[in-house]
Structures are given as structure tokens and as C-alpha cells.
């Protein structure tokens, strides 16, 4: 029972990260109908930036905030310089370009930092605190939950309460109409990518320290899991992404805990296959809204 509780908490903790990452994927998908296959490597790149800054200044938080800032900048730059050229093209092109980015980043980071696993610190202890004699949450878990929740609430507020958020949604749903209403659609797209990269950067900083360490391929499995989460929830649904993320986190935690950690990629595959076969549109897929 202890183990089950522990795995559950651990699963939710990872699930929170997957949820955030899946949210980033959904953000870009809704805005541009592109799945950003480079989201993972971008998060790795920002984490490497944090590593360098922390190494130079000795402060974790300096590195943390630099990572987030770098995420914003990186997302905007990638959209403006690269993805802009394939946004109107067939979706195959955008996928291939994103994969090209993956290779560029992985090669570049490998050249700069090498291919050993570098340690990325955590600001809080990862030792589980005992609640009623049962080791449950660690301070780090609370940190993860807290930041992801804060981020999601901020994004939700941004999108539903602010003028910018309204513009972004309009630009995502009906770019032509939005243009006619004076919305700077291109700018909104860039902003969307910047925000998504910010979320990805946060996810990277939260999850990499819990794995083998910093490495150009450190986020591959996370990307794949988050993609599965997004698909499970339905690529169009932010709520679905969050639920999907938690579900995937839990499933992987149980599978890894009871069957051995090597089996996690297989579990992801199995989950993805099952969901895609049963409901190709995802669990939360809404009927296509009627056009008026």
C-alpha cells in the first residue's frame, strides 16, 4: 500500500509536468495546426542555459529564471525565423522542419556541452516527507505542483480575461476574420509560440533533475509522453491535455514501479495505440463546431 501511495504521488508529480508540456503542445496546435516536435529539444536547450548560468553565478534561481526567459525568446525566434515559412504549407512540411530543428539542437548542444549526463540541481529536497508515518510528498513535489498550477492559472487568465488572450484565440480560430478585425495575426502566432516555449522551459527545469541528468536527448521520452497525453486528451482541448498528462503520469509511474523502469517506453506506446485505435480524436474530442 505504501508503495502504491508513493507511486501515485510520484505519478501525479510527473503527470503535472506532462500536463504542462502537453498544454504547450496544444497551445501551438490550436494556433497553427502544427505539432511542435521540437518542443522537447527547446526545453533541453533552455535547461542547458540554466545550467550554464547556475554554474557561473552559483544561484539556482538565476538559472531558473534565465531558462524561462530563454524559453520566451527561443519560442519567438523559432516561429519568426523558421516556422513562419511553413505555416501555410502542407502539415508534412512543418513536421519535417521541426524534426530538422531537433537534429540541429541536439547536434549543437552536443557540440557545446558534450554527451555526458550533466547534473541539474533541484531547489528543494526530493526526499519524501512522512505524513502519518507514510512517506508521501517531497518538498520538490510540492514545488512542482505549485509552479505548474500557477502557470496554468496564469495562462487560463491570460486567455479568458485579457484582450491579448482574446486576440490570440481569435487569431487561432479564424485568422482571416481576426485580420479583418484588426488583429495582428502574425504577432499573436509569435506570442503563442513564445508562451508555449516558456511552458516547455518550465517543464524541462522541473523534470530533468528527476531523471538521469542533462543530455541532448533528455526530453525525448518526456516529449513522447506529453504528446501521448495531448493525444489522449484530444489535441484541441487544453483541459484534455491536463487530464491526459495526469493520466499518463500515473500510468507510467505504476508501470515503471511494478514492472521495471525499462518498460516505460513500451507502456507509452501501448497507451497511445489503445487511445488512437479507440478514439482517433482523443478522449475529449468535441464535435467540430458548426460554421455560421
Amino acid at each position, binding site marked *: 500500500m505504501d508503495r502504491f501511495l508513493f507511486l501515485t504521488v510520484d505519478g501525479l508529480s510527473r503527470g503535472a509536468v506532462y500536463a504542462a508540456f502537453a498544454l504547450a503542445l496544444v497551445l501551438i496546435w490550436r494556433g497553427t495546426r502544427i505539432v511542435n516536435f521540437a518542443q522537447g529539444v527547446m526545453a533541453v536547450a533552455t535547461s542547458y542555459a540554466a545550467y550554464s548560468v547556475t554554474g557561473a553565478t552559483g544561484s539556482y534561481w538565476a538559472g531558473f529564471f534565465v531558462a524561462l526567459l530563454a524559453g520566451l525568446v527561443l519560442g519567438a525566434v523559432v516561429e519568426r525565423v523558421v516556422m513562419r515559412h511553413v505555416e501555410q504549407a502542407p502539415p508534412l*512540411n512543418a513536421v519535417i522542419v521541426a524534426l530538422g530543428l531537433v*537534429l540541429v539542437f541536439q547536434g549543437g548542444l552536443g557540440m557545446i556541452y558534450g554527451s555526458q549526463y550533466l547534473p541539474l540541481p533541484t531547489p528543494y529536497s526530493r526526499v519524501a516527507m512522512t505524513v502519518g508515518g507514510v512517506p508521501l510528498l517531497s518538498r520538490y513535489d510540492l514545488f512542482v505542483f505549485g509552479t505548474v498550477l500557477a502557470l496554468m492559472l496564469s495562462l487560463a487568465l491570460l486567455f479568458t480575461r485579457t484582450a491579448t488572450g482574446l486576440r490570440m484565440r481569435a487569431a487561432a480560430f479564424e485568422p482571416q476574420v481576426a485580420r479583418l478585425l484588426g488583429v495582428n495575426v502574425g504577432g499573436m502566432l509569435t506570442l503563442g509560440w513564445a508562451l508555449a516555449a516558456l511552458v516547455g522551459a518550465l517543464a524541462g527545469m522541473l523534470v530533468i533533475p528527476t531523471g538521469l541528468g542533462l543530455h541532448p536527448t533528455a526530453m525525448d521520452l518526456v516529449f513522447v509522453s506529453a504528446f*501521448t497525453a495531448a493525444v489522449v486528451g484530444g489535441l484541441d482541448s487544453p483541459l484534455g491535455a491536463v487530464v491526459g498528462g495526469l493520466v499518463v503520469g500515473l500510468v507510467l509511474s505504476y508501470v515503471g514501479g511494478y514492472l521495471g523502469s*525499462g*518498460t516505460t*517506453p513500451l507502456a507509452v506506446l501501448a497507451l497511445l495505440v489503445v487511445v488512437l485505435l479507440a478514439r*482517433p480524436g482523443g478522449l475529449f474530442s468535441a464535435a467540430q463546431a458548426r460554421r455560421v
Partner: protein
Amino acid sequence: MRRSTLLRHLGITALAALILFVLTYVLDPFRDYQLATAAAYLCAAAGLTVLTGLNGQLSLGHGALMAIGAYAVALSQNRFSAHGVTALWTLPVSLAAGVVTATVCGAVIGVAAARLRGPYLAGLTLVVAIAVPAMATVFGGVFHGDQGLSVWLPPVPAALGENFPFEQWQAWLALTAALLTMLLLANLIRSRFGRTLRAVRDNEVAARLAGISVARTQVLAFVVSAACAGLGGGMFAVLAQSVSPSAFTLTLSLNLLLAVVVGGLGSLAGAVWGSLLLVLLPYWTDALVGRLVLSPALHQRLAGNLPLAIFGLLLIVVMIAAPGGIQGLLNRAGRWVRGRRPGRPARRAEPFAQEAEPPAPAASRT
């Protein structure tokens, strides 16, 4: 497919075989090995270009299918060797086993993927690419995890003489496999099935209305490309004389994609250019890095990663600026040349290429 097309394909294959045969004698053993590697890549790349370029299904998992073929060959060969069977015919049998295994897996994936489009398909195959190598660790008893397996191979036939370079022998094996693959695929492309593939890619609804079973076409396309990947992977096992998960990572799948896109999506000739690129680029960058005086550690870091970065850059630039790849550029150049000489009748396009420019991801249209 008309008999004349078949004969033409056979003729070209025979001619190519002859030229390559002579080439293997001219090249030194190291170059022969490179040639062999390119040929192995070509088997998989040719299949992938048909699947993605002509049928529109993007697969990021063909590296995994190669892995399946490779491990099947490894296990089969080791089985033979364990039972003391050392004849030459074990090799084609093992390769066939590799092809069959990969084909079956390809069918499974193909069925799962038949209803998927775009990013969903890419995502599924991506997960396959990551999950399959993980199986080597999970089923460590059979596959020996990260250590991998060594592959026993029958020796070079005595008839070729004592000093016949092993690399040249490997090149012969790989080239045979590649030529066979190219011949079969070329015929397939020109057949009715080839037209069906393209019809489904261009307009699913219209194809369905024309009576084509879209799902069956998708699965068959996947199966065919999986068979080719299995052969390529089996060849990998023969060339490296070992198999391990680290040789079949996601990067391999991405490299295959790179090869077909940069070479020219949908074009068999493009697959040739792409495969050559895959072999030559790391070699060139290694030579380039070698010019710089660096510590061995730094050299390793650069040499290992520079090709990746360049590949990625190529992929991006080609996709944005020249979606037809190398073959597309060649076609355009060819048309320009022909246009300048009005007296000459337009010759038919190269048999291994498409009738027109690789149609593939069209340049952006508003």
C-alpha cells in the same frame, strides 16, 4: 505495367550491377565498406520514400523496423552457427527471416496507423522508434540489452580466392540487396498499385469514390516499406557483424527521413542521393574536424555532433527552399537544359524517378 517498362528496368538494373561490380574492384576496402553502408541505407530509404513521398504517410519509426530486421538476422545467424551450420545459404535465409519479421511488424503498425493522419501518425511512429530499442533491455535474456549481440557470418566463399577483401564481399551483398529493392520498387511504382498509392495521397475522398480501399492501401504501403527497412536493417547486421540498441536510436529514423527528403521525396533516385549523403557527410565532417588541432575528447564531441547539426540544417533549408530535394533540383536543371535546345525531343524521365518532379510536399501556396 507494360512489358517494355519491365524490360527497361531489368536492363538498367543489369547495367548498374555491372558498373557497381567493377567499381568494387576499383575502390579500396574502406570505400567498399562505405559503399556497402550506403547500399544498406538505400534499401530502407527507398522503401521510406515510397511510403512518405508517394503515399503521404510520414513514418518516424523506420529505424525501429531496421532494428527488427537486424536483430532477426542476428538471432537467425547465431542459431545457425550454434547448430554448426556454416554454409553460405544461411545468409539469404536469415535475411529473408529479417524481412519477414519486419514485414509482420510493419503490418501491425500499418493497421494501427491506417486511420491516422498527419501528426498523429508521426507521433505514433515516433513512439515506436523509441519503444522498440527499449525492448532489447526489457527482454534482455534474448537480446542482451545494451551489450547487443554479435552476428556470426559465413566466411567469404573460397572460390573468390584467399585474399579477397571482406569489405568487398560485404559490398557485393549489400549492393545485391539494394539493386533488388530498387528493381522491385521501380516496378511497383509503375504498376497499378503505384498509381493507387498516389491517388490516396493526393485525394483520399476521391480515391474512395473511385473504389479504392484506402485503409488497405495504407497498410500495404506500410508493409512494403517495412520489408525494405527490414532488409536494410539485416544488411546493417551483416556489415557491422553485431547489433545493439545504440545503433538503432531515434536518430536513425530521423536520418532516414533526412535522406529521403533531402534526396527528393518520392523519388528512388532521390533515395540514392540521400543514402550517399548519410554516409559521406559524417565522413567529410570528420575529415574537416580532423584538420583542426584538437584534443581527442573535443574532436569526438565535434565529430559526433556536427553531422547532426548539419543534417538538421539541411532538412530545414531543403524543406523551405527546395522541397523537391536534390532530385528536384536536378530535374529542374535537366528541364532547363532541355529547354535551351529546342531541336532535341524531350526524352522520357529517368526510369527510377517520377514522371515529373517529386510532387511531394508542395511549395507553399496561399
